[in-house]
């Protein structure tokens, strides 16, 4: 698989600046209500929020499909309201619906999209072949899209968004409805684009693990307002530090267990057989905790790590749960640790 390592030549000009963006629909609510954010060149920015929060409306404004009611937004250095053509030249977009023509093949889509962007036939062929290979659609390229699976359509959508080598990529809920394999493959490609080609990515999602896994920074939107914005780790740290609960194999050693744990942070009340501590320096300390317990000869029958999640962040910021957060949590336990929502 070919890999481009050419750095983005206009890296200074592929950021996003949004100031007090408002969008009001006729006789409707404020879908976007004073959003201000900045996305640095080459960054992956995750825009997280429940259904109806204003994510797609924001994307539509930033991609020039909708004019803002007020406020300003500059994408790749161009004003979205006054320099729409220039913005569209600089961006690639994969909207919530893959929106493909079922009667055309994948390759024909490439030809159409590339042609409309003014690429020559040779460029279309070169870029098209590269992108189709990159998204794993070479074998299906000459089949009509009507016969593609949902995952294949999403991958083609991503490839089409990249045909004209945009500096910025907008992805509106790109993995909704995909199976885990397709989702992971798409994450890998998005990550690679940012890392190796310096493409700035603005990604909207309602999946916590997607924001956690992909985004350098996350903005959480609810009812049209940006309620929080920072790196995933700092957002989680803001609302609480992780806690460790442990139960000794020998109940007589509970006191010693408590003493060891106490070296790593503030002791917490726990049920009779367990000792608990809030780690001062975060989850990185867990290895040290285990090492100390081992050095003290304390065998542990059960060890639990409770780390705050973005769902907890959303709950703390809005007072409501993020829809689907619980089911997402259940899907993918990581690294053998049992992850449960942090206790307050």
């Amino acid at each position, binding site marked *: 698989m070919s890999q481009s390592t050419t750095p983005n030549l206009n890296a200074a000009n592929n950021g996003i600046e949004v100031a007090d963006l408002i969008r009001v629909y006729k006789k409707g609510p404020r879908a976007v209500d004073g959003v201000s954010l900045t996305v640095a060149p080459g960054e992956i920015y995750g825009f997280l929020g429940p259904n109806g929060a204003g994510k797609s409306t924001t994307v539509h404004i930033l991609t020039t499909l909708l004019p803002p009611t007020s406020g300003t937004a500059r994408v790749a250095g161009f004003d979205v309201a006054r320099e729409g053509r220039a913005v569209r030249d600089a961006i690639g977009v994969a909207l919530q619906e893959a929106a493909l023509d079922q009667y055309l093949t994948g390759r024909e889509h490439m030809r159409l999209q590339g042609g409309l962007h*003014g690429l020559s036939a040779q460029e279309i062929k070169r870029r098209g072949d590269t992108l189709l290979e990159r998204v794993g659609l070479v074998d299906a390229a000459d089949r009509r899209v009507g016969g593609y699976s949902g995952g294949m359509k999403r991958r083609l959508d991503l490839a089409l968004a990249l045909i004209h080598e945009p500096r910025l990529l907008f992805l509106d809920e790109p993995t909704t409805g995909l199976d885990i394999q397709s989702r992971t493959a798409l994450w890998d490609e998005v990550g690679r684009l940012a890392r190796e080609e310096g493409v700035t990515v603005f990604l909207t999602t309602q999946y916590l693990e997607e924001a956690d896994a992909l985004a350098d920074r996350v903005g959480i939107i609810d009812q049209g307002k940006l309620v929080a914005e920072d790196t995933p780790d700092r957002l989680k740290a803001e609302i609480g530090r992780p806690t460790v609960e442990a139960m000794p194999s020998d109940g007589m050693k509970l006191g010693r267990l408590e003493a060891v744990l106490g070296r790593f942070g503030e002791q917490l009340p726990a049920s009779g057989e367990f000792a608990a501590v809030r780690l001062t320096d975060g989850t990185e300390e867990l290895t040290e905790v285990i090492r100390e317990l081992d050095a003290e000869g304390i065998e542990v029958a059960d060890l639990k790590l409770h780390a705050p999640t973005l769902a907890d962040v959303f709950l703390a910021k809005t007072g409501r749960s993020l829809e689907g957060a619980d089911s997402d949590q259940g899907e993918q336990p990581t690294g053998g640790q049992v992850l449960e929502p942090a206790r307050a």
Partner: protein
Amino acid sequence: MATSATVSAALPSQARYLAWRSVLRTIRQPIMIVPALVFPLFLLAVNSSGLDAATQIPGFPTDSYLTFALAFPFLQGAIFATNTAGTNLADDIGSGFFNRLSLTPMGGSALLAGQLAGVMVVASIQMVAYLAVGLAAGASFEAGVGGIPVLFALSLATAAAFGALGLFVGLRSGSGEAVQGLFPLMFVLLFLSSAAMPRDLIAHDWFQTAATINPVSYLIEGIRSLFITGWDGEALALAFAIAVAIFVAALGAAGYAMRDRMVRT
């Protein structure tokens, strides 16, 4: 940065790509072509056989109802063009493909031109089929070989006119069902005309008045004149003028509708 000049220069190229897509889509949907061919030919067969007695009415302009009625499928084909063009565009709007196109440097007029290209391809296939079947079944074509390009030009102009109408409705409504809802209205226009009987032989005054006001009558009479009369300058001029007038008006309306629909900045 893209400028108006560079965008204008790119329009022909964009229109070519969109026309290519439109033609591909049309060819790959036989269901769009077959009824447009088979149904009018079936009706022609039924009508020419069932109404042959009408040629015995004093004043009937020909002794072959087939020759008289052969203009009818051309208009029916044009009405199918309304449906095809409008439905395709409405489907693009409904599916989000229109947004995909809006995110490219594509100009709205390129999209209109591209969609009409698909309509023209179907219309061309229809014309050849209707003429070939009609002549094979014994219809006469008084205009001769020289009249064939004129017939094609008039038929294409008519198809373009109704196609543009379909585009307007498709853009305004964004709904395939609304475009389909136009079909009964087109049907009424077709039947409330001189399609089945010469205007001067229609017995009911109100129907004769309706057929006289109806622009479709003049389109049919223009095409029919090539089969029955040969070269009737007045009929042909009227037919071309009406086809072009409908085309210009409908395309203008479609352009405005495109501007409203493509709200991109």
